[in-house]
């Protein structure tokens, strides 16, 4: 078991290392470089000066060397300076990460609870009208463009009904818990609605599979009540693949977070990365993308470990 965990952690680190190189090279392929931007804001800089500056900052060196220097700096905790915010990257990154966590955790919790309830209800009688209705809703959830769903939420609940604010995380001068809560309602609902669809389909499929197994027949034969059979005997077994899928879907959830944050103007990781890419803020974009990758990889690792823990039959090697 310990060996398995160590190996998975090593693998995760390796993937992270490879990804950091890939992302570093891709960021390098974005239009312009820091000196170009400097020249654009101050056209009086002579070409020779620009060339000297490039040399001074090592921008004329080959990619692999530049990457190596960035990596050693990053490992010692120096992620560089954000161009657009004029602050060290970490001071911007951490609050944004916290904001995104609030959004992700609340919508994830809501959609897990919803999908368990809906998935089980649908699996009780596959093909029945309840199943049909829930499946239709689930398909709608996986098919809706998240940004458009956000737009429609804004249109209905902010523009027409004035129930919730359309953007931001708090009113200026307020910032009480109630105020923050009201600002979170629409983003969280949007993201939860979009993720519940996929989860429900997994729960439903997994439950249908398990309800066909002998253990369910045995439980019924022993006289267990229907509620007990479904909720205890079947559900626990159906949980194993579901937990894995849910943890693995973290990357997808992050896509949704990026969109909801952009649409509702929430200062989280997703919006930060998007703005950083638009604003040629190389350091911030790079670190943001790497943090997003790291969080996703960690959730996958957690899924793997949970899988072995939930199902003792799986020999971890």
């Amino acid at each position: 078991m310990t060996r398995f965990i160590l190996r998975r952690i090593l693998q995760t680190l390796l993937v992270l290392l490879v990804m950091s190189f890939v992302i570093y090279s891709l960021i390098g392929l974005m239009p312009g470089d820091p000196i170009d931007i400097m020249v654009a804001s101050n056209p009086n800089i002579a070409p020779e000066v620009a060339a000297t500056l490039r040399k001074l900052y090592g921008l004329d060196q080959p990619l692999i060397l530049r990457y190596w220097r960035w990596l050693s700096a990053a490992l010692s905790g120096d992620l560089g300076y954000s161009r657009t915010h004029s602050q060290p990257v970490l001071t911007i990154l951490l609050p944004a990460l916290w904001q995104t966590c609030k959004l992700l955790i609340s919508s994830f919790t809501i959609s897990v609870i919803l999908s368990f309830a809906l998935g089980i209800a649908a699996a009780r009688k596959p093909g029945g009208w309840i199943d049909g209705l829930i499946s239709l809703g689930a398909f709608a959830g996986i098919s809706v463009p998240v940004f458009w769903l956000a737009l429609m939420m804004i249109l209905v609940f902010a523009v027409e009904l004035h129930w919730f604010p359309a953007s931001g995380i708090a009113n200026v001068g307020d910032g009480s818990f109630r105020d923050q809560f009201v600002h979170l309602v629409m983003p969280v609902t949007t993201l939860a609605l979009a993720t519940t669809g996929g989860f429900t389909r997994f729960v439903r499929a997994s439950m249908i599979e398990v309800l066909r197994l002998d253990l369910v027949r045995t439980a019924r034969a022993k006289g267990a009540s229907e509620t007990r059979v479904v909720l205890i005997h079947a559900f626990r077994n159906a949980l194993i693949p579901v937990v894995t899928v849910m943890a693995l879907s973290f990357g997808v959830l992050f896509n949704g977070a990026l969109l909801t944050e952009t649409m509702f103007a929430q200062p989280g990781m997703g919006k930060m990365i998007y703005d950083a890419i638009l604003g040629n803020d190389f350091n911030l974009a790079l670190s943001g993308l790497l943090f997003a990758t790291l969080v996703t990889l960690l959730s996958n690792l957690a899924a793997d470990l949970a899988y072995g823990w939930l199902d003792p039959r799986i020999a971890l090697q």
Partner: protein
Amino acid sequence: MSRTEVAVSPGRLRWRRFLRHRAGVSSLAVLAALILFALSAFVMRRFGFDPDATDLFARFDPPSRLHWLGTDEAGRDELIRLMVGGQMSLLVGLLATCIGGVVGLIIGVCAGYFGGRLDAVLMRFTDGMIALPLLPLLIVLGAVDLTKLGFSREFAHSGAAGFWRIIVIIAIVDWTAIARLVRAATIAIKERDFVRAARASGAGPAYVMVSHVLPNVATPIIVAFTLTVGRVILFESVLSFLGFGIVPPTPSWGNMLNNAQELVTSAPALAIYPGLLIFVTVIAVNFLGDGLQHAFDPRSER
């Protein structure tokens, strides 16, 4: 004479099973209607409708006899733009899925057929891709400066570059589902007797893969392919919406929503139409995939 005595080919059997899946059949009809809608742009052009003709005196016009769905913020006819945009979205969806599908097919078959170290490397790579937050990655890829990759300036700023760029970048990231499926199916098939017989009689790996393995993994691929088309259409709309996809003035359902946040207050209908079309298309594609799955999988009883 009872009907069971008539022999039924597997293909017809599947078709019958598909026809029993009501949602699948109706989504096939919906998709046909959507394609017809997108293609009717060619007819509309004949009658003088132009997706690029602006009229700044007729911005945000309500629906009229001249403009059936009204006009957008530049006074362009919304209906014809929806049609042309549909062509873009559907075309990108199909092409990107095809290219990504071929990539996934090659990686999956090679990993499954050769096994061993190659399999381990390819599958770790695939797992790594699956673990990534795709949208930020797509945005970075969409922002890549093509001139730095050695393309000419003229090409990098042309509409064609925008079109092919989005297809290629989606294909680069969205091949993983197909690769994993194909690998699993290949492993299941390669130890079957007919494949071993082919190998024993001297068939090389390429021959065996193309003529024995591929035809037998076709069914799961068709289903995965369908579901991928839906996902790709969503990706295209998101990227175009954020400004990294199809470049205006060429309309796509995604970029027609570019400034939708302002439209929500001024002309809500314009914020609704394109998104609704994306929604309907993707939901129909997903139901079609479900129907196909039902038709191909004898175990799924409903």
